[in-house]
Structures are given as structure tokens and as C-alpha cells.
């Protein structure tokens, strides 16, 4: 990829990341951290690509690529389950005793 357009992508993505969560309420800080933790689990894709491109006779690279995929998969799967479990608990109970507000 041409370096300059990559720089533009970096810049736009950085502003997007900043804007997207700018107004998050405190109660969602931990789930949101966990959610963004899940999203960088996309590193799994990168692991699959480097492992897939490694020549089958290069044992050292295969081993490290294997570790990359293993860790990436754990990041993605674990991040998802933990986030989903936390968010599943946020159920509203509207109308129940909203006394003096």
C-alpha cells in the first residue's frame, strides 16, 4: 500500500475512534474497554495471513505464526464472550419505582 494513503487512513481512523466514544457514560467504561479489546482481536486475521504465507519448511516461522494465530484467536473469542456477558446484564427495568426524579 502506498505510504501516504496509509497515513491518511491512520489519521481518519484515529479521529473516528476518538469521536465514536466521546460521549460514553461512565457506567459503560469497563464494557467499552472490553469491547474495544475484542475489536483489536482482528489481529487474528493478520496472524492467519503471516502463517498462511510462511513456506511449509520454515519451522521457526511456522511456530511463531502458530502462536500469533493462537493468541489472536484467544483475544477475539475471549474478548467477545467477556463483553457479551457484561452487556447482557444491562437490562432496564422501566417504570419500576422511579420515585422522586
Amino acid at each position, binding site marked *: *500500500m502506498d505510504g501516504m494513503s496509509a497515513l491518511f*487512513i*491512520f489519521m481518519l*481512523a*484515529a*479521529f473516528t*475512534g*476518538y469521536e465514536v*466514544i466521546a*460521549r*460514553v*457514560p*461512565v*457506567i*459503560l*467504561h*469497563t*464494557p*467499552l*474497554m472490553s*469491547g*474495544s*479489546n*475484542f*475489536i483489536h*482481536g*482482528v*489481529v487474528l*486475521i*493478520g*496472524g*492467519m*495471513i503471516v*502463517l*498462511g*504465507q*510462511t513456506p*511449509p519448511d*520454515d519451522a521457526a*516461522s511456522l511456530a511463531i*505464526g502458530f502462536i*500469533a*494465530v*493462537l*493468541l489472536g*484467536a*484467544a483475544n477475539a473469542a*475471549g*474478548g467477545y*464472550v467477556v*463483553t*457479551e*456477558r*457484561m452487556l447482557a*446484564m*444491562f*437490562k432496564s*427495568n*422501566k417504570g419500576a*419505582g422511579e420515585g422522586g426524579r
Partner: protein
Amino acid sequence: MSTFIQFVYFLVAVAFIVGLKAMSSPATARRGVQWAGYAMLAAVLVTFYLPGLHNYGLMITAIVIGAAIAWYLGKTVKMTDMPQMVAIYNGMGGGAAAAIAAVEFMRADAVHHPSVGLLAALGAIIGAVAFSGSCVAFAKLQGLLKKTWRVPQQNNVVFFLALFTFGIGLTIGFSSHPGGLELTVFFLLALALGALLTLPIGGADMPVVISLLNAFTGLAVGFEGYVLANPLLIVAGTVVGASGTLLTLLMAKAMNRSIRTVIFAPITGEAQETQGEVSGSLKEYSPDDAAATLRYAQKVIIVPGYGMAVAGAQHKVWEMAQLLEEAGVEVKFAIHPVAGRMPGHMNVLLAEAGVPYDKIFDLEEINAEFAQTDVALVIGANDVVNPAARTNKSSPIYGMPILNVDQAREVLVIKRGKGTGYSGIENELFYRDNCHMVYGSAQEVAARIIQRLKELEA
């Protein structure tokens, strides 16, 4: 085929951003993570069809083992232990990014543009730091590592180690065939750097550190995305890097600490003992007294803290709150931004116990209400309700926003014993005339109060 795959990657990037946006509002949060989940699945599936890949057996084995273990652990871990799970999964992402860089460095046919070598090296350092740092954070939160530990001249050592590691990284990035020894030393130094950065940091600052390491991993993933010429990784990684940085700043602000002081000048535990004498005496209530006080109040605000989380008392506390509501008492929960172990962690714990989130209020929302409240019930919280933060300029926590429980007509404090809070300072609130102490574990005290409330109704 390749165009189709790239288009799917594009849609996945959109879904990630929309999902993250949805995750920042309680009503849509769950949908948000599910969209992102489907997107991740789609990305993995189409990657199998990328042209020119082999080693599918190894790939699938690694995915199945990694995902299965992480899935199982994630499903079974207790809610109280969630923060360290986030830390360890984050570390794995960082480790994966570092491993990708390692494989790229070792490729025999690599003819890299200098910018590729530079970013690969940067991503490798940041990823490795996130990996070892998160492992230390996990060990601390899990209680495997209790001491903070720093080398002499900590900050200088860290600075020069970082500089040196980066130097080696540059030579590796710009050479076409780095030696195995050079690579090993490089990664070992980067790992040591991560551990060295995290070891001196104490428990209460951990959330900020985990959030920072989360942003690091995002950045590392973004850099490796550039190395692999994969825009999906660049976008997802950079978005997480930026949002993670903002989240870290928000958390640090809530704790009245700057990132710089968290990393380079951690609270060492030797709190300065220059504070004025606290006057008054501690007045003790039995759980039965507390039950009666609560039962005959009109409005009660419950302030849960880390002590409640440790005792696992959230279910009992909610049961107690429901009994009070049935008796006509208005009950609200007030949560300090850093209650629990991470901002928002206490909300998760209360939500787990079944407390609807519209009964839970932030510091800014509820602080003005304490003055019209009959009873403020503090459960296992200390520093976040210490009025010294408002008044005593010499106090280490001066300036931290606190919950103004002292303005309530009466304050009840459930506490394990007479010890001080995390910061090690005396809490003058406990000596006020309108404050009564109920000693015991939150779990037992709440159970006793529930029993007594039922007797009062009968």
C-alpha cells in the same frame, strides 16, 4: 475473489465502528458487540479464501485451541474477576501483533520499504510491552503478585531501556535479514520493558494501566496492518488505539491522577502523616440498629465500594434494597467513577445482581441529592467519600471528586474493620456526629439487615 474479500473486509471495518458506537449507549450496547462479533466471524471466514495461503491445518488447529480455551474461561470467570480477564486477553492481542512482526522480520524473501521496517519494529515493541505488561497486570489483580516492585532509578532505567530497544528495533527494521540472536534480544528487551513499566504500579491505578495497554495493543495491530498492507487491521487497530487513549484519559481524570503520575510516580503507600488531628469518636451501630434506621427513612442512597465487591455482597444488597422499596422507602444507588476496580465495574456488578440501571446514578447526577437524603449507606467504600478531598489541601487525595455523603441527614458505614482506605489516610467522615459505623463483612451485615427488615414487617 480478491476484490470480494477486500470488500468484505471493508464491511467488517464499518461494522466494527458502528458496533463500537452502539456500545457507548446502554440501550444498544449488546447489539453493538453482537454486530462486531458477526463481522469478526465473516472476516475470519473470508480470510481462508485469500489467494496464496497454505498451512491451513496449523491455522485451524491454532484457532480452535485458542478460541476454545478463551471461550471457556470467559464463560466461567466470576464477574468480580472480569478486569483481569480483559487484561489477559488484551495481552494476547499484543503478543499476537509482536509475533506477526517477528515472522515478517524472519521472512527470507522480504524486500521492505523502510517505512514498513520502521512500523513493524514499532508495532513489535508496543505489542510486546502490551503482552508482558498485561501479564503483570493480570498477576496483580488475580492476587498472584502482591508487591509493587521497582528498580533503583526506575524512570531512567525505563527510559534508556526503551531507547536501546528502539535502537535495536530500527537496525532490525532496516536490515534485510536480521540474525536470530538479534531478534531474540530485541523481543526479550521489549518484554522486559513492559514488565518493568507495570511492576511498580499499585492496585488502584491498574484500571488506567489496563486501559492504556489496551490502546497500545490497538496501535500495534494498526502498525502490523500497515506491514501486511491490510486496511482492515489498520482501521480497527487505530480506532481502538485512539478510543483507548481517550478512555484512559477519562479514567485518569475520574481518579484525579494524570497518566504521567500513574506511570512514573505511583503512590508508594507511605502516605504523608501531616494531616490535622481528626476530632470526635467512632460510634458503632449493630446491624439491627441500621435496619431500623433504614426502614424508617424516606429516602436512602446506597454507595457501594470495593469492599462490597470483595465480599460478593451485591445480591444481598439488592435484596435489602428491594425490601426497603416494598416498605415505601425510596432507594437509589450512587456510584463513584472509580468504585470497584475499574470505572463502570461496579455498575456491572450491580447489574449482575439484577439492579436496573435506571436506579444507578453517576457522581454528577446524584451529588446534589445527598442534602435531601435521610440516610446515606456506604458499603465498603472509603476514600471516595472522604470529605478531606474537598477541604484538606495537604491530603494526598485533595481535589479528587467525592460523593458528598456527609451532607445526608445520617450516614451509615458498613466496613470490615477500623483500617484506612487504599490511600492509607484516616477518614474524618467516620468521626462526624451524623455518622455511625456497622462493622462486619458486607455480606453478613446485609444478610442480618434483611432478616431484621423482615421481622419489622411481620
